[in-house]
């Protein structure tokens, strides 16, 4: 794979490493993983209409995220429950609309690259996610420790929640082509979960998470070229290996 073709997967890994840290710290691990499945019906509709499947997935993720956010804030049902319902519905609709090999590719990603426009749009989206997290990280830290403290400090917590979920959805959309809806959620969560286990401060967690996500992506593509296998599952296997290795070393209290 050429260095230029690696640019988008690496940008995707940086965004996934950063966005995952706040999902893991907010105990949204399963919920955020499930949210990624919302892309499936969008991919199915896009394939039916012969559109770019990533665009279909992105639109579905956008509406799914806004729906999850709106239901949570209007009904006070916990995020996990709302995402669980939306995820199951999306999976059911998506599997009806998509079939055979297309379904497998939508779930696990496919070999190959997007066009020039898709690459540039992807790089811009990754830059947007990183810029948002840089701007919002102090607010996100305060809100995850106490929503009351955030409100008392003048932070608009519902708006912050929505922007964070949209950044998460955009990050998932970045990986749809390479990792699919199932594996992309894992790239967001696993490096961050590993970093949380070994880090002792916010900056070290962010740095470790991004490093692991990038290293897993590079390692996955390298192993795929050596063993002639698909890169997506290898990326996740390498990331998971890092997680299990981190469990061996117990973090000092």
């Amino acid at each position, binding site marked *: 794979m050429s260095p230029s073709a690696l640019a988008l997967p690496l940008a995707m890994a940086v965004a996934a490493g950063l966005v995952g840290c706040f999902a893991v710290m907010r105990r949204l691990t399963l919920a955020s993983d499930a949210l990624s499945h919302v892309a499936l019906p969008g991919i199915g509709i896009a394939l039916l209409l012969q559109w770019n499947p990533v665009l279909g997935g992105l639109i579905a993720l956008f509406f799914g995220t806004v729906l999850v956010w709106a239901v949570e804030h209007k009904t006070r049902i916990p995020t996990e429950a709302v995402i669980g319902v939306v995820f199951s519905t999306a999976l059911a609709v998506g599997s009806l609309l998509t079939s055979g090999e297309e379904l497998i590719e939508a779930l696990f990603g496919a070999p190959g690259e997007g066009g020039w426009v898709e690459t540039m749009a992807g790089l811009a989206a990754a830059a947007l996610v990183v810029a948002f997290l840089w701007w919002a990280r102090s607010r996100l830290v305060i809100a995850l420790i106490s929503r009351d403290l955030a409100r*008392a*400090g003048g932070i608009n917590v519902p708006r912050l929640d929505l922007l964070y979920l949209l950044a998460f959805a955009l990050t998932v959309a970045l990986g749809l082509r390479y990792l699919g809806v199932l594996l992309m959620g894992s790239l967001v969560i696993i490096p961050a979960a590993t970093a949380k286990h070994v880090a002792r*401060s916010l900056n070290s967690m962010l740095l470790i998470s991004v490093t692991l996500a990038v290293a897993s992506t590079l390692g996955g593509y390298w192993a795929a070229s050596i063993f002639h296998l698909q890169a997506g599952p290898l990326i996740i296997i390498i990331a998971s290996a890092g997680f299990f290795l981190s469990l061996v070393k117990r973090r000092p209290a």
Partner: protein
Amino acid sequence: MSTILQVEHLSVGFGKTLVFGDLSFSVSEGDALAVIGPNGSGKTVLFKALIGGIPYGGSVRWAPGTRVGYVPQKLDLERDLPITGNDFLRAKASVLKASAHEVCRAIDLVNLPPAVAAMPIGTLSGGQFQRLLLAFALLGRPTVLLCDEPTAGVDEPGEEGLYATIHRLQHQEGLTLILISHELNIVYRYATSVLCLSRGRGFSGLPLEILTPERLQEVYGAPMKFHHHADDVA
């Protein structure tokens, strides 16, 4: 002293349940108002209304230029959260666009050792974490400090020390203090006025007027014992 907070006909309810209604009181600059009442009487709900965190009826008017620092009730945190005390304080300083010097000043004011501020917050003791929350509230140089049971989860010696720190800060920084506490000895020692919430209503007055055995029995439904000395009154 001028009025810093004027609350009129305040009511808060969740669905059809009214927590309290028609609550009116005022707080003067430099006062130490203690809010007391049995569990479920709406003390924390009152604080949330005062900081604008929940919808309410009636009016809450802060004097122009008032800056509120808020110390919430004990927070349940994951022990392995990789956020240090310094991360937490710098996050607020960043939102306020305050300098790193302000963070050091807040840590100094609450007597939190810098080595403790550098530890992950989940590993701090109850007393250390409450001091960190106090330092967080002091960032931005508030004029009013709202403390919601600041010693919940703190052992007795730590409790005395924390209240002494809050009392010192009130005078040193010229703060107005609004404090929720179950510790009637502390209320008697430090409060200049008391607001008692009970059964959906509230009444306020001087500690000597409110903290009488008869009134406390009526409010709490059981005799309340506490010790005080005449020279304890602030």
